[in-house]
Each structure stands twice: as structure tokens, then as C-alpha cells.
């Protein structure tokens, strides 16, 4: 976590990842049961995610995570820090 604050500018949130783009999870900005749930679903630092589709209304967005597809509301996705692959 400490390295994260140092190089903050290099990171984006998952909400900024466009459909078709990939990124690596850096950290979760949530605590408590939500954090546990996300970890259990495999969203750990280092995990590769890919945005695969977007709801007709723009949010939620579905991400491929470890072979399964999980949809998150953009507001929630913005609490997940990622390092986009370019």
C-alpha cells in the first residue's frame, strides 16, 4: 500500500478501463465485508482484469476475472485501483 501512494499518478481506477482494455489490480479502496467479497471473487493485487462489456445504460461494466465474468457498477469499480496495460 505504501508504494501505491508514492506513485499514485501511474494508477487509474477500474472504472476508467474501457471495454476491450486490460489492467492489473493494484489495491482495493474498500474495507469490511465488501473487501472480503471482492478478495474471495479473486480481485487481488496482481490479478489481471479485462473489461468485456458495458450495460446499454453505461453502467455496470462486466469484467473478466480469472475466467469468470463479474459486473460492477462504475461507482464501485472506481474503488479498485489498477495499473492499465498499454
Amino acid at each position, binding site marked *: 500500500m505504501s508504494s501505491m501512494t508514492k506513485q499514485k499518478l501511474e494508477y487509474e481506477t477500474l472504472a476508467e478501463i474501457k471495454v476491450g482494455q486490460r489492467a492489473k489490480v493494484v489495491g482495493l479502496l474498500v474495507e469490511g465485508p465488501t473487501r472480503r467479497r471482492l478478495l474471495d471473487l479473486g480481485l487481488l493485487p496482481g490479478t489481471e482484469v479485462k473489461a468485456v462489456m458495458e450495460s*446499454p445504460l453505461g453502467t455496470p461494466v462486466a469484467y473478466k476475472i480469472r475466467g469468470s465474468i463479474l459486473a460492477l457498477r462504475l461507482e464501485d469499480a472506481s474503488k479498485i485501483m489498477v495499473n492499465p496495460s498499454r
Partner: protein
Amino acid sequence: MEKGHDYLVALAGNPNTGKSTVFNALTGLHQHVGNWPGKTVARAEGSFKYMGKRYKLIDLPGTYSLLATATDEEIARNFVLFAHPEVVVVVVDSTTLERNLNLVLQVLEISNRVVICLNLMDEAARKGLEVDAKQLSRDLGVPVVPTVANVGKGLNDLVKVIAGVASGAIPTSPHRFTLKPEIRKVLDEVTPYVKKVVDDLPNTRWITMRLLEGDARIRKTLENGDLASLATLNQHVSIAESTEAELKELFDRVQIAASSIRESLHDHIVSSIYADAEIIASKAVTKTEAPKIDMDAKLDRILTSRIIGFPIMIALLMGVFWITIEGANIPSQLLAEGLFWLEDQFTLLFRWFGAPEWLEGVLVHGIYRSLAWVVAVMLPPMAIFFPLFTLFENFGYLARVAFNIDRIFKWAGAHGKQAITMCMGFGCNATGVISCRSINSPRERLIAILTNNFVPCNGRWPTLILVTTVFVAPMFPSAVSSIVAAAVMVAITLVGIFATFIISAVLSRTLLKGESSFFTLEMPSYRRPQIFRVLYTSLIDRTIKVLYRAIVWAAPAGAIIWILGNVYVGSETLMTYLAGILSPIGLLIGLDGIILLAYIVALPANEIIIPTIIMGYMGASMMIELESMAGLHALFVAQGFTVVTAICLMLFSVLHYPCATTTHTIWKETGSAKWTFLSNLIPLVVAFLVCFVVAQSAHILGFG
């Protein structure tokens, strides 16, 4: 089923991995569904025999983990930990092995005798994945059986292996995940004290970890007698209760140890598990050739398309309504003819016995007739609608609907799962209200419960369909009348859904203030549903149940209707008398006294609204049979019924208070008189307001 088994077997697994399919295949009809003690989570248990031994099988709730704090997970892990099953079968989705291994590794941590059912092997092959069961078995230290549960492939082997592990013939040496040395050291310090309290577990490290993390539920389980009560599920185990001193010593130790750990223990444990899962999965899975076309992605692109995603939803809804209306038409007519023929026979029988006229009236023309009506108008549409709906559900479409409309629920401050609970309401609102249990946040769960009633359930369809066929369809050529009926149903449903959004939004800004909680929506792969299984379960589980309760409620209502029509106040019947009192209010909202009275009488069962109205209009002493539509049209018009009345009636039907069963269910689910009362008051106010505005605007504009 409590006694008489040789081995207790638990089925665990992520949701949607085929657990129930395996359970059903193994137990056949030897099963029953109850509730977990003190919990609102369904518990299916069954039994099977193999080589002279009896196995009791428990289908645990589907979970991703045993670490989090949701009720489902607590039930699953308490069972695995404390009920001492001889074998735990973990059903695994072979297409997402890594994530499934998260649960597997946790189960291996707390149980020695584990069998992995590597299911959905056909889907894995379709996705170009080859999963090496032998390799997986070597790494996990327990047997792994590849299966395709929906066609029964591999299940014989599974039973054989379960038997082998249960008897000890197949040895196991479960993989335990690797922890950092400094964490391990702290755990080792506390573990002896845990052992003093629970010494009969295969591995106490897990309990130590939970306690260090401050898991209040595990702590509570240790403190109260839950351990012993769960253990009695398995007759072969008895448990000694620990002393208070032992517990206190343990909790003190835990407190000291916990303060010595700096980083988040939970994060560390999950990363350790996933680190092992990644290695194990990468050894077991080889990508053969990537499939040329990813069917799932293709379908998703269509069904969630920006342009046609919504039109497809509406078209499918309309298609379902159309098939239901069209398909139910003839069976309903035949049923009506048959049942009313039977009524004539009953009448003859009563007369032959010389029974008093009032007895014949109440029993035959009151109770029997309303039962006959309910069966004739409800059974065929339900028998068509429920299987259709279940097909969509099993195919994986409901998750896409939730995905498509979620933004509106987010705007309304509601939970994303409300899309699913709302759809369940189409069948029956009581079922919809029960399904709200899947929403963890109490605030959002209440919103979902309070607004479920705004989608028209099966019981209200007959009213909607009949009013449409009598008043709207005649304006169109008869060839398209069922399409028109379906379109009107869609329109009225959209009104209901709109009301759901608005009322949810109002509630989250007033009485139930708050923001939506974090929402994750799993999008399952599309699966070809098992047609026969769907037919069977939706007929048995849904149709029969809903019909049964409709019948139970319709019978007394039928008697009341007969009495209202046959007891005189001065020169008019009680019905006309009461309708006269209600008439001014009725007219204000575009209805009339009879309709309002019908809604009061039919409180328990919405299904009998129309026959009650017809009876009121006829002034006759009994509900008439469904004669020609033209006859009904004439009857309604003669009473001053206009298109505006028809529209208001349909609006009232979709918006008004829930039926008695749903109200009772809401009361049971919320345990609160206040919310139950509001669940009736809110729709009533909405229905009155909307109908009032529509009727008065129509009046001002010169209609009706």
C-alpha cells in the same frame, strides 16, 4: 431421515456449479427441503444407498468462500466444521478452476475427507480447456472425479469414490495452503488453546485464523451450544462442552496474538490461498485451441447491446405473455366447460337429496364455482408461464436483465439484485418477497420487499387479460387479438416497473434513506436448460404451490360472495347496498362501487376479481360462466363501463395493495407490523392517486 444412515455427506460448491443437479441425480426422489434451524435459508437433504450402505446427503448453500460473513457462508462452514460429515464433496466449475479452488482449499483446510466433483467438463471442452483430473488430485491430495452432471456422466464414479473415502478405503492427505512464516508463528502460539476447546476437529488452524481475524460469529458459535446441536446431525459424533475458563483463556490469547499482527490477516490469507490456487490450476489446466467463436460473448453482445438490448427484453416479455395467453386459451375453455358441467351435476345431486337452497348456494354456487373459476383461469397460464420463466432463468438471461437495467436501480438507491426479485414477482409476489432474502443490506431488502407488489403476478393476469380481450381487443381484427392483449399486458407491466423505480427512489430518499451498497453481479455462462427438469420442477414447485394457495383462499371468498349476493337489505342485496356506499369513491378514481367492493372481497385472492364484478353487475345470485365476449361486453357497457373504466381497472389491478398471502409473507419476512402496514398503504395510495389523475384528466378531456 435423521436416523438410519451410515455416512453423512455434505455437498459444497460455488453457486451455479451444478450442486443441485448432482444432488438430484444422486438422491432421486429421496429428498426433502426444509430450513436450516433458525435461518431462512432452504436446506435440501436426501439419501441414497450404495453397496448396502446408506448415505445421507446435505446440499449446502452455494458460496464462494467460507471466510466472509454472509449467512449462507456461515451455514456452509459451520456444517463442514461442526457437523462432522464423513465426506465433503465440493462441486467445482472446471471452466473457472482458479476461483473455485479458493473454496476447495478452504474446505481442505477444515476437513480431511474431501472429494472433488470436477463438473461442467463439457463446457470446459467447449471453451478449449483441458483439465487434468489426475494432476489436480495429486496436488490437492484428495480424489477428483470429472463429471457432466446434467447428463449423469461420471456420477457412478463419484458415488464409488464417495463410498471409498467414507469407509477409509481411499486415503486422503489434503493440501494445506502455505502461510508466511511470521503469520504461522503467531498461529502456532494460539492453536493449543483452541485445541483445548475443540479437540476433535481435523485441523484447528482455520479456527485460530478466524478468531485472530475477529470473526464474531465463530466466537459466538464456540460460546453457545451451536457446536453440540450441529454435531447431533451426525449420530456417530458426540461433543463435550468446553468450560468457561477454557474459553476465556482462549479469547485472551487471541487478543494478545491479534495485536501482534500488523498487516491485514484476511488479505494475507486470501492471497496465500489464491497464490496456491494459481499454481495448482496452471498445472491442471491446458488451453488447447481457443474456440473460433466465443458463443457467450456473441450472445452477450446482442442481449446487452446498447441499441437492441432493451427492445429484445420487451420483445421477450411480450413473447412470453403472448405464448401464455394464446396457449392458455383453449385449455382454459375446456377446463371451464368441464368444471361447470360438473357443477350442474352437483346441483342435480343437491336437489336429489333435497338439500336446503342456501346450502346448495353456498357450497355449489359460491365455493365450488369460485374454485372452478380459479382453476380454469389460473392453471393453464401458470402451467405455461412458470416453465417458460424458469427456462429463461436457467439459460442465464435474468442476470443479463439485471445487467441491463441496473443503472435505474442504482439511481433509485436500490440493490442490483432487486431486478431479479422483481422478475420473480411475475410468477407470484409472495415468492418474489421471499427471494428478497438474497439481498444482504436490510435497507435495500426492505425496498425490494415493499415494491415487489408492483409487478403483476399470475393471479392478476386473468383480470388484465379479460379486460383487454373484452374492451381493447375488439377494436382490432380478431386475428391479432392475442397479440394486442400481450401488448397491453406489456404496457401495464411497464407501468408497474416504472412505479417500482419511482417508489424505490422515494423510499431511499425518505423513510429508508441511504445509498446503494456495493454490488457484484456474476454473469453465468449461458447453459442449455434441462427441459424436463424445468418442466417438472416448475410444475411441482411453483404451479402446484401457487394454485394450491389460490384455491385455499378462493373458497371462503366464494362463500362470502354468494352471501353478499343473496342476503337482502330492504329490497336490495347486500352487495348492491355496499356497492352503493362505495360508489362515490369508486367513480372518483374511474371505477365504480362494485369494482371497489370486489377488490375488498377479493383481498385474499386477486384471481376472483372479475367473477365478483360480473356477479355484481348481473345482480344475479351467482357468478356467471364465461359466455361469449360480446355478451360480457354488453353487460359491462350497460353498467356504464367505458374504456376509461377499463384502463383505470387495469391500473388499479397492477398498483393496488398486495394480496393476503403476500401480506402475510411480508410480515413473516420483515417481522414488523409497521413495514407490513406500509407495504399495503403505499400501493393503495399510489393506486388511488394514479387512477384519480387518469380518470379526472379523461373527464376533463371529454372521455368517459
